[in-house]
């Protein structure tokens, strides 16, 4: 009797706790999303938000026009490049930070996230000051006589990837540090006792056990890459556009339905890559369900 009352109370409490966020997400995310999809299935209108007729033209255009293919591929390529850079650099950094004493670790992590306290806009201008035609790098190189004319460092794929990487790296490091710290030292000792050298201990034990942290870090980095705008605009300029730039361009041209269709393309890419990350890393295996 007591336990029944208890479990009922628990359920009520759980429902009460879950209801506000669920309601919030439903009202302000799911409903608008459905609305957005509805918008994307229409043509443009000069007076209304969208035209009168239902049509798949927007998606047809995105799927057939090679311009959009280029942008989609470039977006994916940028995402992958940033992901890979963040993974390699982030894992290496985390691997060094994780075993340090808690205090040192905390100080280093705080240092690492300190740049996040500066707005992305300001940081992008910072990179412009460093990488621009009259920037620090070019001035230095010219004064040493290594180059004659200025190098075009900005408005390039590299500038965007580099700029985003510096912003997103802390997310990756923090995720992986937490995952590595959650791994009991006994696991690595058990691997060594079973004749695994340090490299194999890493490959067979540490890496799989850290996969939840790696997965969450990669999801964060990739999704933030897809939705980054300021950095791409300022460091990529008019030539290095990604999908998100096209959404903005369409909106400013009042082509709302097409912007909506591009948004859904972006969302699809995000879901596909997220699914791919989870399928490759299989973070759930740490729970021992294969």
């Amino acid at each position: 009797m007591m336990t029944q009352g208890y479990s009922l109370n628990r359920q009520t409490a759980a429902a009460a706790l879950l209801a506000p966020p669920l309601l919030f997400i439903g009202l302000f995310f799911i409903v608008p999303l459905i609305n957005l999809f509805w918008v994307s299935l229409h043509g443009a209108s000069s007076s209304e938000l969208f035209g009168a007729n239902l049509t798949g033209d927007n998606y047809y255009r995105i799927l057939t026009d090679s311009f959009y293919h280029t942008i989609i591929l470039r977006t994916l390529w940028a995402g992958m490049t940033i992901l890979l850079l963040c993974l390699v650099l982030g894992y290496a950094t985390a691997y060094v930070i994780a075993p340090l004493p808690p205090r040192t670790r905390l100080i280093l992590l705080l240092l690492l996230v300190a740049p996040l306290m500066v707005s992305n806009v300001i940081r992008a201008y910072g990179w412009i000051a460093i990488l621009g035609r009259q920037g620090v790098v070019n001035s230095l190189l010219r004064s040493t006589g290594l180059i004659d004319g200025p190098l075009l460092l900005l408005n390039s794929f590299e500038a965007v990837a580099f700029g985003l990487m510096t912003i997103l790296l802390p997310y990756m490091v923090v995720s992986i540090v937490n995952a590595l710290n959650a791994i009991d030292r006994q696991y690595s000792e058990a691997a060594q006792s079973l004749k695994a050298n340090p490299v194999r201990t890493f490959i067979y034990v540490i890496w799989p056990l850290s996969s939840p942290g790696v997965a969450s870090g990669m999801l964060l980095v990739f999704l933030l890459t897809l939705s980054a705008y300021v950095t791409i605009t300022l460091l990529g300029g008019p030539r290095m556009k990604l999908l998100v730039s096209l959404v903005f361009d369409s909106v400013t041209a009042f082509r709302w339905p097409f912007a909506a269709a591009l948004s859904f393309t972006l969302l699809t890419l995000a879901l596909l890559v997220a699914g791919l990350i989870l399928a490759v890393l299989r973070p759930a295996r740490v729970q021992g369900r294969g």
Partner: protein
Amino acid sequence: MINATEPAVRLSHVTKRFGQAVAVDRLSLDIPDGSFFSLLGPSGCGKTTSLRMIAGFETPDEGDVFIRSQNVTRIVPHKRDFAMVFQNFALFPHMSVAENVAFGLKMIGIGRAEREQRARDALSMVRLPQFADRYPKQLSGGQQQRVAIARAIVMRPAVLLLDEPLGALDKNLREEMQVELRSLQQNLGIATVFVTHDQEEALTLSDTIAVMRDGRIEQCGTPSDVYERPINRFVATFLGASNVLRGKLINGGRHALIEAGSLSIPMEKSVGQDGDTIELAIRPERIILAPQGVQGVPAIIKAIVYKGATVSLYCDASGEERVVFVPGGHPSLTGLQTGASVVLTFDPTHAVPLRGQ
């Protein structure tokens, strides 16, 4: 053939410090091949550190570690010939039971077919053949324990290291696993080093027990040696309950006078000079309740604790607490009540002279 006189493990004057603290202090010991050797002591006595130095997870500051006469002091763990069962088992959660057991074989380059066969054999040995495809989290504590043992013995190591492996199990399971562990170890004949703070476990399982305190071995011997003939007060009280009696030596150190000189206990040999103070340990189960009038230690019963197989009597003998274990249902218990006056006697051969403190 293995040389019978060659120890499976030898620690030679090994010292390990952590900062200022000395964890292990010039420790030397030989673990004979095929024997079950326990390092027993309270936490912080250096037993786990000693085990970890055999494994190579800690490097001694001084001294040498040998496994099968090879000096492994500077050799990394994965190149040493040992296997280990960890305190919390440390089964890899992302691998199935079979993969866990075959992991070590895979690392030393055994082909798939052979390692699967050997993993199956090892799982049969611990009576878990049907669990090969499960994951560790789907197993009970006792089953995980067995998998951890299978994963270690499948390597056929020179020495098996056990770091309080039964600590995580509940009492009944623990006793069951003790029996199983012992018979498995005897069948395989693997030299085993067992670290524990549980004296009962050490007594049950071991061929040899080394009782440790403050990084040193206080006494090393067979279970009955260390239990029946403890050399000092620490060993006497750490391994089960003990009554410590004070006396003075007479007769060339061959007799101890106790109880204000009323009882004279003969010693096996001279244990000191006349007039020296000496302590004698006597186990509670060696004390007998004698009828009034018999020569012995007069005492008053303070508490009677019924434990089923035995009954513990807590007595006051002129201000000193004395403990007596009487087998349950023993005639001397009839009508016995708190506050009763009794006389405690014992066979003098069971009184063990203790050295130092």
